[in-house]
């Protein structure tokens, strides 16, 4: 049996619904239809009344979850695409995220964002929004890159007492496969060294982890050992693991699929430069999507986002220093 990244997300939700009566799912078309990406397929039938179709009202969907969370439930809200969450952003940033600090009472909820680019999805169905959510205090922002993480981290997200933004990558939904669901998990909020190497550290997350690994393989043929670090959770950001890796390699390339200004890659570079300055043998660099809207045409899209080829080039540049 093989399990996709999407199966993992569905299974995690199913497990949570089964184990915890406080859990429910709310979102457009998540009920009988099973969601635009089928992340909730069959769940409405299995858990009657707990997988609920919402109107097209992102602000109210998140606001509703805030209220339900305050009242002790553990709502999971599915956005149809991450990009539409701009319309529900206020309730997340100003309500969910401020509740614990303002009131001392928890607001445990998960906002699931089908994120990232796929060919032909264009400016409004491709965005990676982790930077926006991470900038504001009060939210945990997860960006799983593997089937295993998709499963264990979503369970974790549901259990946490804080609001969590769960950025799922759409490009991984169907194609990324694993043998089975995992039995154990990497510790919460910890980055993971995906591949060890002593020449340079490539820090990234979500779908870019796979591009980075491909780039590392390319560079291996050229004799370079690239250490790939998967952040897993971008807020809080596991600086320790990143610094430990840079301590081994002396070089850093941070990669993010999102835009450059203020993205996770800027945050990583800033932290390493501040806290690990002496570890660096070369200027730390970052690689991101180009600073334009995300193009519709696959030709443009392929040139817009970081890919294994562009990451390899970036790594070589840092190595050449």
């Amino acid at each position, binding site marked *: 049996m093989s399990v996709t990244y999407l199966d993992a997300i569905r299974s995690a939700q199913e497990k949570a619904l089964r184990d915890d009566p406080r859990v429910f799912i709310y979102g457009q078309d998540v009920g009988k239809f099973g969601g635009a990406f089928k992340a909730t397929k069959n769940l409405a039938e299995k858990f009657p009344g707990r997988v609920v179709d919402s*109107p097209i*009202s992102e*602000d109210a969907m998140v606001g509703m979850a805030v*209220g339900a969370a305050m009242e002790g439930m553990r709502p999971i809200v599915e956005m149809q695409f991450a990009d539409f969450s701009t319309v529900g952003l206020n*309730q997340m940033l100003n309500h969910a995220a401020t509740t614990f600090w303002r*009131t001392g009472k928890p607001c445990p909820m998960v906002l699931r964002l089908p994120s990232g680019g796929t060919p032909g999805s264009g400016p409004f169905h491709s965005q990676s929004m982790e930077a926006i959510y991470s900038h504001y205090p009060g939210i945990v922002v997860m960006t799983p890159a593997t089937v295993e993480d998709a499963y264990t981290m979503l369970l974790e997200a549901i259990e946490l007492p804080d609001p969590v933004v769960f950025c799922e990558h759409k490009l991984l939904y169907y194609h990324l496969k694993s043998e089975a669901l995992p*039995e154990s998990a990497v510790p919460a909020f910890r980055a993971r060294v995906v591949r060890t190497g002593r020449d340079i550290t490539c820090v990234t997350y979500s779908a870019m982890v796979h591009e980075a690994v491909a780039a590392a393989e390319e560079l291996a043929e050229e004799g370079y050992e690239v250490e790939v670090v998967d952040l897993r959770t971008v807020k809080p950001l596991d600086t320790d693991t990143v610094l430990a890796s840079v301590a081994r390699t002396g070089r850093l390339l941070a990669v993010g699929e999102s835009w450059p200004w203020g993205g996770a890659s800027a945050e990583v570079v800033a932290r390493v430069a501040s806290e690990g300055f002496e570890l660096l043998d070369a200027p730390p660099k970052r690689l991101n999507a180009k600073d334009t809207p995300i193009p519709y045409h696959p030709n443009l899209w392929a040139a817009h986002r970081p890919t294994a080829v562009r990451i390899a080039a970036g790594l070589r540049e840092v190595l050449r220093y």
Partner: protein
Amino acid sequence: MAIRVAGALESKPKKGVVDPIELLGRTILRARVLEDKLGNLYRAGRIVGGVYLGKGQEALSGAGGLALRKGDIFAPLIRDMAGRLGFGEPMVDALRAYLGSRLGPMKGRDGNIHRGDITRGILPMISHLGAMVSTVAGVLVAKRMKGEKGRVGLTCAGDGATSTGSFHEGLNLAAVEKLPLVVVVADNGYAYSTPRERQFACEDLVDRAKGYGVEGHGVDGTDPMACWKVLQHAVERAREGAGPQLVVGKLLRLCGHGEHDDGSYVEKKIKSSERGRDCLKVMEEGIKKRGQEKEWQGWREEAQREVEEAVAKVSAEPVPDPFEEDWRATQSDGMAEVMVAS
């Protein structure tokens, strides 16, 4: 459409029976006395930040708070001191929030009208207008899922707040879910300085009820007993499963938007219209006609004592100390347990 109850205030109190006039009258009075004090504290420079009062709106707001029971949910907005007191919020909470006491419900982290305590059923508003509608809806969804029956949620908004997407989405969502939600709109004719004709184009906001598929109730917000009746009825309808209720009260705010504002943009002819009546005066006159002038005076003095005592108490309380603060916006930050999935 607006309900108004002529002569209702003159009915005599009956022994042993809850007397709505007395209940609402005392609530209006307590709110007014407290708010007058807050205004004075503001002018004395004792409060940091703004003071937002609900003068003239106490009847509608108070009737809403009083119509609820313990276990219900109340999500007040900026002009709902009367509703808060009616629902049971202690006076000291307001003062602690305004004076920034560390012992207050928000510990000085937030203040003034942004206060509440979800464990007591009072949601602490965020500033973004309209946001509380869907939040109360969420609390009610949760209660329904937990099998808690017979709870009602009530939230308040101004005429201006009805223009927000949040208000619309929240009320629509509640209507789809047929939730026991009462939305009380205090149509005071202005949003800050903006008159209602720059805010919406319908004649009466209660005309929106049909479009949401909810029950609508118009009321003269300056008539205390009309407010009482309408709110009792709306809360009862919600409680018995009739779905969301939209109550629209027409009235005027008899103060500035905040105490920094003199409200000079309010048109004279509105001030002198029926809408500009002071519900407190209406109440007081009724009470007098009822022959309870002495009691009224007593209630007022009692309220004044209560306020002064609370001010004295809170003034002596510690303010927040940045060195003792826990500067963490999440509970789980730093946590790193191994989670074993099974």
